[in-house]
């Protein structure tokens, strides 16, 4: 339940109105010494000379040319590993935040899945230099899946450990009814074996694999969680696609820096 709204202008405060006279709306008035108000909306710098309209925003020729330069796209391998690294980082961060909030509050706040999908999509998109393509979209979906799965690793780890060692107190704490058949089975590992690094590593690996079923189990447990996760996947798919560039121009800024007001102003209305 949020309010989405446009952002405030980013490049500085407007000048003070000089006096209390009625405003005229024929020509824009700018503080003497400024650039006539035209600024690159991507870099915030004043536009001098040529400019473009990039996706509806004013963009200086310098910025547009730097974006269209093939060198700025990097190599294919660079884009792949960039997307892989950033996407993996976002997935781990999402899993830690989600798992942490679950452990802290006891709630599975589903909106985090949608948020994670959004962040992962942006990360993969940025890493791939917004090159787009099915590979990056699938990569983003995979990272959302892993993010959701990995958030369950702590619970899965403890569950497997408790099963292996025959310690049903963990399940009692979690409110899971004990299975009489389970109670009668002998522990698979002894107390000494349980403390070894090898045992912990194996359990962690098992938890990693078993947790991959997490998204399916969550979706089956609640239609609401299924919908929220679908939002997460959709966001990741959407954000990891190719950047759509709508370019108009070039235009000429014309007015020299410091142009201020035009020489002849019509009388104030």
């Amino acid at each position: 339940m949020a309010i989405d709204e446009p952002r405030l202008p980013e490049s500085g405060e407007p000048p003070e109105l000089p006096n209390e006279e009625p405003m005229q709306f024929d020509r824009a008035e700018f503080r003497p010494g400024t650039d006539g108000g035209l600024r690159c909306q991507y870099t915030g710098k004043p536009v001098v000379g040529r400019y473009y309209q990039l996706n509806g925003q004013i963009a200086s020729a310098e910025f547009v040319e730097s974006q269209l330069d093939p060198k700025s796209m990097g190599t294919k391998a660079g884009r792949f590993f960039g997307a892989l690294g950033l996407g993996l980082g976002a997935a781990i961060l999402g899993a830690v935040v989600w798992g942490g909030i679950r452990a802290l509050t006891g709630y599975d706040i589903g909106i985090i899945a949608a948020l994670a999908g959004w962040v992962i999509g942006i990360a993969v998109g940025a890493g791939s230099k917004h090159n787009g393509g099915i590979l990056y979209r699938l990569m983003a979906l995979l990272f959302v899946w892993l993010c959701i799965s990995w958030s369950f690793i702590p619970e899965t780890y403890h569950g497997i450990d408790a099963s292996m060692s025959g310690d049903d107190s963990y399940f009692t704490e979690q409110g899971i009814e004990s299975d009489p058949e389970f109670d009668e089975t002998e522990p698979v590992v002894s107390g000494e074996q349980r403390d070894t690094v090898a045992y912990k590593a194996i359990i962690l690996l098992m938890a990693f694999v078993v947790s991959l079923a997490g998204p399916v189990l969550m979706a089956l447990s609640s239609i609401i969680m299924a919908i929220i996760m679908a939002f997460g996947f959709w966001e990741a798919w959407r954000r990891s696609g190719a950047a759509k560039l709508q370019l108009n121009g070039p235009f000429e800024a014309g007015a020299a820096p410091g142009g201020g007001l035009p020489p002849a102003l019509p009388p104030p209305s």
Partner: protein
Amino acid sequence: MSQPSDICPDCGGAQAPGALNCPQCNRLVHAEELKELAATATQAEQAGDKTAALAAWRRGLDLLPPHSAQYAGIRERVLKLSREVDAGAPQRAGKGIAPKWIAGLGAAGLLLWKLKFVVVWVVTKAKFLALGLSKSGTVFSMVLSLGVYWAAFGWKFAAGLIVSIYIHEMGHVWALRKFGIAAEAPMFIPGLGAFIRAKQYPADPREDARVGLAGPLWGLAAAVAAWLIALATGWQSMAAIAKIGAWINLFNLLPVPPLDGGRGFRALTRMQRIAITAAMFAAWFLTAEGLLILLAIVGVVRCMQTAPESGDRRAFAEFLFLLAALSALAAIPVVV
């Protein structure tokens, strides 16, 4: 009304489509509309209708280059009017003054007069709540959400939940309209709640806080109403709706933009933020509600960030009140 053009009709210079002024001669592309809006706003101000004046001036801001002197001048007027609306200055002359014959009836007459205002308040608010249902997008998304919640929780709880969320959103709409901010009707997202897309931004953090906290305030009213019905009738489903409604509104107090709590925090000084964060920890200690520890941890982070030097007392009081009331309501025991 002038339309954006690629060629300036005054100087013949090229300009980007959608540009607000010609970069060569500074001609304002929407000059005629701006003049009409200025006239509308001035008339509305003279008539004492500050909300209408605010709406017209804000529309004017959308049509002006943000670095122009005209933009700065109108922004000043918007801020002044917004503060007057906030201070509860009378919108129209004569409103709220009791007729002489009422005074003649003494205390009973005064009570009758006050009661009239209560009735009018309830009727206007109910009328306003119905207003949101006139938008097909709102109704369609609401029905879709209702279906999802129905499948998960049953129709009674689903209906209560939808009404709670709707009232919360209409609280935002009411505040946005009060300040003349253009916004779209609420849209429900099944499973995630609902949102409103504002077309303009608040003039300052104080206004942002009013708009942001209006949702939880109305949501709290809805939750309290559900709880009172549960108390009167013993209907536990209503108690459950009150509890979940309070929880949802409490979640919205998470001090992270763009959530309502994030908007409220924008208007607070560092000391006010620290006090609210301390209250969050205290509420968690008293109620053991897990959500409150999350609010408190995020609050600690926000305390470390840049904060305004002079805070808004009303936003601070509203935030504290909401925190206390919603925490208490979210902690009510419910047996379903």
